[in-house]
Each structure stands twice: as structure tokens, then as C-alpha cells.
């Protein structure tokens, strides 16, 4: 295999693989139209397996820096009372992850508004609508609240939530996400670091599932006179809805933590816990690092070149075994590279995009035949010398 590594044909054939990849990328079509597997796996990411199958970040300690308050079915007056009660305990920030869609009654609405405006450490969520690059927002109350953040995540509609846009920029306006706005109040230096990263999106590093957060029932805060409010002191308090039923779909989303990575399943995590994971990620600067494009292409070139050398050796010397060896090499490489890719994600929070590598290895076999035909033509026309000229394998 290695004796062909530095041969001119190996290098040129490898270059041709990337040239073909470049040409294919130029065609602006979705080639997966008739590929049911690709269509089924449209919202699939191999890195999800690191969470769902290999327990990345499993068994962490309970997060005591964030306390989640479940508003349950409380009405606006009760929600306002909960906010006031929590606010009195001097938390670092109160993130209210509730969208108030319309005015209800002026009394409870004014109570809510008063609750929001008497404590400058309250952040209210709202819905940011982006339609054809036009940004609008919907809801009630948030207009009159000083600190607010959009609660939208980034992902396919109804798909798995893997990304968040900490700041969304449109027409010279910058909109802040709910998690970023909460972080600004609770962890200003971490917030500055997030801003400095200047990323369009961040991959959410899920460190905890819903069960790993302290959840307090809002009704208990109001009704239990023995309730110890010091639990909120200097903590990030997130108020939202948590259903008691695993079959409830209210504010529930799919995440990579879902035990079923592919196919039909039910959403596994409430929005408030996704925000909690993002806030925790920002606080600890525990970001997922994406390998840069040049590294991805370097890996693709290197591994494509090694495979081409192997393929050429069998193509010329043991052609009868060529296709079998090529297929086995492709399968084994896929298994190995997925393992390595997941390992980097699992251990060091690094996402490596191995798609160019896979495509290069898959295309190598077909391009090799094409390259052989080209060299035969060049030899006939210009006397070009190639390893394939005297190989008799057909």
C-alpha cells in the first residue's frame, strides 16, 4: 500500500477526488430527494450518540447554582406573587420563561408589570419571529420590561435542539437570547466572554438533564409558610412550566439527550431546562469547539490520500480483490472515524466534521476508474506515463 503513497498517480487521483467533490458542490440541488435514509435522518447528528448512547456528561452532580420554579397552572396574579416572593429572597437573577400572549385583566396584568419593574434583575422571555429576514416579535408585557430575551432555539421545526443563537443580528439591530440576557445579570464576565466569541450560533453543551436541577413548586412558595426562601439567595432562578407527565408536549423539545436518536419518539426536555443548560455552559465557558474548516479538509485530504494509495495497490496488483477490499476499507474507515469523531466530542467537546472525509473515501473508487480512463487517453495522445498503462486487469 505505502509503496504507492508518493506516486504521481496517487497524488493526482486524490486531487481529482477533491476536484469532483468541488464540482458536485457547485450543483445547487438537493441530491437526497430519492434517498429515504437521508430523508429520515435529516435531523440526525452522529454527535447526538455521545449523549444518548455513550452517556456524555452523565451522572453530574445536582446543579445548585440554578433553581427552577414550576409555575404549574398558576394564573397571572399567582405568577406575580411568585415573582415577588422569589425577588424578596435576593436571587442573582430571575428568568421568567413565560410568553404572555395578550392582556388578561388589568388588575393581574398591572401586578405582573409591577413585579417586573420593581426588580431590575428580572428577565422576561419573548418570541422572536424571523420571516424572510424580517424580524418581528409577539406577545404582551415584554415591551414594557427593561430586560428581556428571545426564547427561540435554533433547529429544524420540531427537531432536535442543538444550537442557540446567543445574539441575533438583523438590520443593525441586535436581539439578545433569553439565556444571554439571564447570564448578563448573573454572570457578567461570562456574558462578556460569550459576546467576545462573536459566534452566530453556539452548539448547546448539554451537561444536565431535567432531573439534575433543583425544581421548586411555585404553589409551595405561596402556600407553605415554612418554605425556606434562602434557597433562592444569589441563585439563578428560572420560572417556567414543567409538566408532571412524560406525555405532555407543552414547551417540550427534542434534545440530543433523547434516548431514541432516530425515528419516532416523544420530546424529552422542557424549554426551561434547555435554557438552564445554556446558562450553565456560558457560566463555565464550557463551549463546544467546532473544528475549523481547514482542519476538516486537511483530515479529508490525508485520509483520502491514504485510501487512494490502498485502492491503487489493489487496483493494479490484485484487481480481483479490488472491490471487496475497497468496500471493507470504506466500512471499517466509517466505523473508525465515527468512533474518533465521537471520542473527540465526548472527551474534549470538539465537534469534527468528517463529512468531507467520508465523501472523499466513497468517491475514491469511482474517481479511480475515471482517472485510469483519463490517463489512457493522455498516454495515447501525449505519451503520458502512468502506473495504469501496463496494468492488465480487465
Amino acid at each position, binding site marked *: 500500500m505505502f509503496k504507492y503513497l508518493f506516486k504521481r498517480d496517487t497524488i493526482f487521483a486524490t486531487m481529482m477526488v477533491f476536484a469532483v467533490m468541488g464540482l458536485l458542490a457547485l450543483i*445547487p*440541488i*438537493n*441530491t437526497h*430527494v*430519492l434517498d429515504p435514509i437521508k430523508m429520515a435522518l*435529516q435531523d440526525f447528528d452522529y454527535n447526538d450518540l455521545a449523549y444518548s448512547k455513550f452517556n456524555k456528561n452523565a451522572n453530574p452532580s445536582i446543579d445548585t447554582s440554578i433553581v427552577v420554579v414550576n*409555575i404549574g397552572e398558576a*394564573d*397571572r396574579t399567582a405568577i406575580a406573587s411568585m415573582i415577588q416572593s422569589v425577588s424578596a429572597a435576593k436571587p442573582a437573577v430571575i428568568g421568567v*420563561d*413565560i*410568553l*404572555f*400572549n*395578550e*392582556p*388578561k*385583566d*388589568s*388588575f393581574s*396584568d398591572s401586578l405582573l408589570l409591577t413585579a417586573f419593574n420593581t426588580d431590575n434583575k428580572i428577565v422576561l*422571555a419573548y*418570541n*422572536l419571529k*424571523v420571516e424572510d*429576514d424580517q*424580524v418581528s416579535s409577539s406577545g*404582551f408585557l415584554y415591551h414594557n420590561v427593561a430586560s428581556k430575551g*428571545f*426564547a*427561540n*432555539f*435554533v*433547529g*429544524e*421545526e*420540531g*427537531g432536535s*435542539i*442543538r*444550537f442557540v*443563537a446567543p445574539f*441575533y443580528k*438583523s438590520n443593525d439591530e441586535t436581539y439578545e437570547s*433569553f439565556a444571554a440576557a439571564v447570564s448578563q445579570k448573573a454572570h457578567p464576565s461570562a456574558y462578556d466572554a460569550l459576546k467576545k466569541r462573536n459566534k*452566530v*450560533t453556539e*452548539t448547546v453543551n448539554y451537561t444536565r438533564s431535567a432531573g439534575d436541577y433543583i425544581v421548586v413548586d411555585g404553589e409551595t412558595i405561596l402556600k407553605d409558610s415554612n418554605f425556606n426562601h434562602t434557597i433562592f439567595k444569589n441563585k439563578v432562578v428560572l420560572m*417556567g*412550566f414543567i409538566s408532571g407527565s412524560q406525555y405532555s408536549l*407543552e*414547551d417540550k*423539545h427534542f434534545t440530543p439527550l433523547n434516548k431514541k436518536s432516530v425515528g419516532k419518539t416523544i420530546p424529552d426536555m422542557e*424549554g*426551561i431546562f*434547555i*435554557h438552564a443548560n445554556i446558562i450553565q455552559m456560558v457560566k463555565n465557558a464550557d463551549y463546544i469547539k467546532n473544528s475549523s474548516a481547514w482542519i476538516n479538509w486537511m483530515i479529508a485530504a490525508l485520509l483520502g490520500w491514504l485510501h487512494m494509495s490502498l485502492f491503487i495497490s489493489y487496483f493494479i496488483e490484485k484487481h480481483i480483490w479490488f472491490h471487496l477490499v475497497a468496500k471493507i476499507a470504506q466500512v471499517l474507515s466509517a466505523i473508525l472515524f465515527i468512533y474518533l469523531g465521537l471520542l473527540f466530542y465526548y472527551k474534549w467537546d470538539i465537534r469534527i466534521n468528517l463529512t468531507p472525509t467520508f465523501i472523499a473515501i466513497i468517491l475514491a473508487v469511482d474517481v479511480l476508474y475515471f482517472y485510469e480512463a483519463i490517463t489512457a487517453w493522455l498516454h495515447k495522445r501525449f505519451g503520458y506515463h502512468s502506473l495504469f498503462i501496463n496494468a492488465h486487469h480487465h
Partner: protein
Amino acid sequence: MKFIYVFLLSFLLQSVNANDISFIVYHVKGNSTKTNSKQILKKGDQLFLKDVLILKDASSVVLICNNYKIIQLNKKGNYSIATLIQQCFKTSASYSSSYFKYVWNELTHTVGKPEKKPGDFMKNVGAVSRGCTDVVYGMHTDTIQLSTNSKLLIHFKTFYNNGYAAIYPELYEGAALIKQKVNLTDSIQIGTLTKTLTPGIYYWQIVAEDGTSCERNYIKIWDQKEYKKIISFLLKDLPVSTPAETAFAKAFLLEENKFNAEALIWYKKAVQLNPSNQTYQQSLSSFYETKL
């Protein structure tokens, strides 16, 4: 060949012109209007060649062509009827053409990446929603306490076409005790709706013909005597200030206790006694909106 197509098309358009009415509105959801008219479109409205249909955000319209074909529009925008009419004469596609159209559409539909263009992938909202926007009431309340002879008028606006106001004995489930047809923008005299009911606790709501609705609102009907008694009890210890201030305080206290009909009387009284007071005026207009 081209000439024949052009001729046929102009012939069809000519015949359409002769009929004049191009579409009849069959179903409307949300806010849609046509040019030269501020009226919101409703079922049965006629659209002519010169019209332009204006579809607002989250609206949809189903139109019937004069050859009985149906066209559905659900994307925000302005639609010229002269252009839309051409869709009425399109023949339905065959299996083969539908298949290749599907393949072509899929081929040319490039899927973007969420991490590169997040704006296209921000439909998932990680927050619980509270409140329903299908019906907007001029008096923002989900709880009302009323006397049996109340004349309280509540204004509302709804996107439901052919809706009705209904009174139920239960918060969830159960058949309506009373039903009354309402229009898209309307007001309802809640006392008239409940006049046949005996004092007690009921639930009311505006419901679309297809059953779509927001959650039910609580209503407590009091016997007239009891009602007067509770109002007097609530107001008896109120400290007396200037007449306008006292009226305003009464209104606030009654609103807090959901006696909205009485609260409205006192808010109006406060404004009448001191028309220059901005707080009174703002309180009245936010408590009782008549233009929605």
C-alpha cells in the same frame, strides 16, 4: 400553436370579464381585506377583477372560482385577482407530472444549515405560552361577577368566522346552556346572554363554528339583592376623599373584586368629576376598550 394559446387565454379572460364576479370568499381566517375597502373580508364577499386581496400575517382565505374550483391562500401578501383568476383554469396535474414536479421541487430545494443561517431555523420557542390571541376582549378579564339585571356590554374582536357566544355549566366539557351568534367584531351584552340563568357560577366564551376557542371565562351571577349587599359591604370602609378620588378608589376596589359592571360606572364617574385627570382617563380606557 402559441397564437392559439394566447387566443384561448384572452377568450377565457374575456368571458371572465363578462361575468365580472371572479371569486366568492368561502372561508377567512385572520385579517384579510381588499383594496378600496377597510372592511375585513368575510364569507360570501365577492371579489372582482380590479380588486387586490391583502392577506395579513397568520391569515388564510379560501376562494371559490366561478367555475367552482377552490383556491386557498395562506401566505401573507397582496394578490391581484386578475392574476389569481388564471389559477381557476389550470387543469389538475396528472400522476406523472405531479411526480416529476415533486422530484424537481425537492431537487431544487436546498436545505440550509441551522448553524449558518439561524434565522431560518428559529421556530422552536423554549417557553410556555399563557393567553390566547384568538379573541381580544375590550374588557380584559377572565372573571366577572354580575347581577341578574346587568347591562354590561363587552366589546371583542375575533378571527373566528361565524362564531357564537356560549354559556356553560362547567369549566371544561359539557354542552352549552346558551348560544348566541356573533360577528367578527362585535359587542355582547353579557346580562342579556345570562338573563334566563339562575344565580350561580357559569363559564362563557366566544367559540368558532368549528369549535375552536380559547379557554372559558368565569362568570358569577348574583341575585340582585345579594349583589347590592356585597357591593355595599365592599365599599363601606373606603376612606372618603374628594368625590372624584372616592369614585376612582371605588372603581379600583370593584375591579379588583371583579365586579366589572359597577367598576365601569365608578371609573366613568371619576372621569366625569375630573375630566382633566390623566390617570382616571387612562384607567378607564385600559379597563374598558370600545375600539379594538
